[in-house]
């Protein structure tokens, strides 16, 4: 089946996996933090943070990509600062990961937030009376109890990252081996006569990968729920 997808396409698949993996991994701690803050704290500007997090969902992806380009491009205010530190995002796979992470972030945060909100605060109180400081209450009670939602949110974010196109191609372009993810490759194929077959092959690959992740997450979540359940 080596000729089923060409080497270029396999590179796109590998790149998409890498981009989605790192995008998900890096946004997870931030996602948990933001979800927790939105679920349990009240602070000035909370609605603003909430709005910012959801922005990528509301905006057309092209706009998000455009804004990323303006902000994180080599000439952008943030991109310039990062470049001085040796971190280059523009037109790199790291930028693709950033775009994917930002696009997937609202989904991740929503899922985690809902499951944190569902944790019974009375259990957190019980942990506090047993001497657990807020951080440890979070680590030993809130986090494990919210695990099904965290798993769900993570996989959702991964799936979204695998499918992200508009923001990615606008921000980091479509450079083979560097930023040409599966969706970008599909786009390129669809732009030329006769490319539909190759596009479909890539669609199938990405569906298989994402479905695999999804089924895995269901199994994980069920196992976790069985452990936690029947309180």
């Amino acid at each position, binding site marked *: 089946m080596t000729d089923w997808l060409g080497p270029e396409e396999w590179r796109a698949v590998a790149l998409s996996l890498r981009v989605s993996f790192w995008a998900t991994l890096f946004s997870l701690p931030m996602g948990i933090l933001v979800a927790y803050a939105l679920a349990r704290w009240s602070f000035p500007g909370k609605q603003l943070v909430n709005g910012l997090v959801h922005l990528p969902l509301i905006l057309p992806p*092209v706009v998000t*990509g*455009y804004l990323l*380009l*303006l902000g994180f*491009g*080599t*000439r*952008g205010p943030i991109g310039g600062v990062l470049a001085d530190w040796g971190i*280059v995002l*523009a*037109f*790199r796979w790291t930028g693709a990961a950033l775009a994917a992470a930002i696009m997937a972030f609202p989904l991740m945060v929503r899922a985690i937030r809902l499951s944190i909100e569902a944790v019974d605060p009375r259990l957190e109180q019980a942990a506090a009376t047993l001497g657990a400081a807020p951080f440890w209450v979070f680590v030993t009670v809130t986090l494990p109890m919210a695990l099904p939602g965290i798993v769900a949110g993570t996989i959702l974010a991964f799936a979204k990252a695998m499918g992200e196109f508009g923001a990615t*191609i*606008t921000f980091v*372009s*479509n*450079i*083979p*081996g*560097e*930023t*040409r993810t599966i969706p970008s490759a599909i*786009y*390129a*194929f*669809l*732009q*030329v*006569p*006769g*490319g539909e077959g190759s596009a479909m092959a890539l669609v199938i690959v990405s569906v298989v990968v994402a479905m695999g992740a999804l089924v895995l997450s269901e199994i994980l979540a069920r196992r976790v729920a069985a452990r936690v359940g029947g309180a």
Partner: protein
Amino acid sequence: LGAWSPVIAAADQVVVFAAASLTTALTQIETGFEAATGHDLVVSLGGSSALAQQIRQGAPADLFISASTDWMDALAADGLIAPGGRFDLLGNRLVLIAHGRDAARVAIGPGLDLAAHLGEGRLAMALVDAVPAGIYGKAALTHLGVWPALAPRVAQTDNVRAALALVALGEAPYGIVYATDANAQDNVTIIATFPPDSHPPITYPVAVLAGRGGAGVDAFVAYLRSDAARTILERQGFVALQP
């Protein structure tokens, strides 16, 4: 070359930002160029507008091949193009297509009553104010005097391939696309070709970007002008403009 290049080999790496409609042609040109010169060609394909914006934001491109002159002009105005580095690579023809393998041809002229042909159906075009194929199509229909009648019946897509797909699927009975797209598509028939004088010339300009250059870039520009490239482009249905 910029700091971007992760591998700097003995041979140069040439980065080309090109309109997505050139995908197949550039894939073949890449193979030929790399075999012939030993340089490494990297092609990033996308919408001309997105690519131009990226170049404005410092994208590490050596060359830009645009599907319209507008964006090239805009870059030129920004001083992002190397002086003397611009030329028109190829041209294209605009055609009227119909659903099916053997639709009847029509004559394009002042008497064309496309609205009657459409009936309840839609005319598929790329975005008429934004995407080059749509802009050219609108110009042609305006030139023919039928635009006001047709405007409400136009289904605009974000790129010309999507317009082609609408016709191929029969969702829209007619569409206006490039000849290059229509040639390769089953299930559509070119029923007329718009006269070149009915719309601004369709050209794909190429430019070397400001501050770029070197042996690899020079070699690629030379290759684009070569017969080998010309053959490839013409096989795709383009009109090669450079001798």
